């Protein structure tokens, strides 16, 4: 019964329209495409807002208060980097990969993996190493949403920063190798981003 219905539906889809002109069909399809794409993008961007990220208590009571103490939340110029600016790449392909990957976090929410501060602390190092691993493999793509080493004016940096950045450039280091634990508490654990990168490179 259902198969017969599906076959009729498929046949109807494949039959040329005798009622609507090609212009109506193409125009209708175009308009529907815009509505669908606009809706999809709006929904996607809604998941990139600070309000969405701190909507669950897992983030609201742990990493959010830590981030609020940092320069990425409040600074002289009033430019704020929200969660997605540091955790979601801007370009479409990497953004979609990250979003698909992040859908696993919904499962974590359902199963309550980090639903208490104690559980979160127990998982903090593991969660951080995931973020660090992702960043060392993408050359800190999220940092580069805003910062580019080639766009930096060394004369406006302290001597210390100038030396560090020159060394990083010479050694092919990526941002997260030095700038870790800057928006959230540094977790205690054996490997930092540099060690994780070395391990990844040794496997290749």
């Amino acid at each position: 019964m259902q198969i017969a219905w599906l076959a009729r539906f498929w046949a109807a889809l494949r039959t040329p329209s005798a009622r609507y002109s090609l212009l109506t069909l193409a125009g209708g399809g175009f308009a529907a495409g815009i509505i669908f794409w606009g809706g999809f993008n709006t929904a996607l961007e809604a998941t990139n807002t600070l309000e969405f990220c701190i909507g669950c208590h897992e983030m609201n009571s742990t990493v959010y208060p830590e981030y609020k103490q940092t320069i990425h939340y409040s600074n002289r110029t009033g430019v704020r980097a929200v969660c997605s600016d540091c955790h979601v790449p801007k370009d479409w392909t990497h953004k979609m990969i990250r979003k698909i990957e992040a859908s696993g976090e919904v499962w974590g929410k359902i199963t309550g993996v980090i639903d208490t501060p104690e559980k979160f602390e127990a998982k903090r190092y593991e969660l951080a190493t995931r973020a660090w691993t992702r960043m060392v493999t993408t050359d800190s793509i999220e940092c580069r949403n805003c910062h580019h080493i080639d766009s930096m004016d060394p004369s406006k940096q302290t001597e210390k920063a100038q030396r560090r950045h020159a060394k990083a450039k010479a050694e092919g280091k990526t941002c997260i190798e030095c700038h870790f634990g800057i928006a959230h508490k540094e977790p205690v654990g054996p490997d930092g981003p540099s060690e994780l990168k070395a391990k990844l490179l040794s496997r290749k």
Partner: protein
Amino acid sequence: MISRLAGFVCCLAVAVPAYAVDENEANNLLEDSKCFKCHSIDKKKDGPSFKVTAAKYKGKADAEAKLTKHVTVPSKVKIDGVEEDHGAAKTRDPAKVKNLVQWILSR
């Protein structure tokens, strides 16, 4: 007499609690003083990790005094063979400095 004295010393040891480190206060001071730019808790950065520092001073009688001086008096340190300024913690409150030093020693 000796056993009484030993008992008294033991009671004292029990009565005097170990210094209770305020983790949040130490963390805030480290953040404000930008210590994490060069030091990590237990990972490699340009400066030694706090864990390495704690191990270096472990069991040394002058640990607290030396570390207190290091975090309160600006000094020079060598990074990659280049001499650099080592800043001081951004506080003049001795209690906060003591808490910071104890935090480092307890890593």
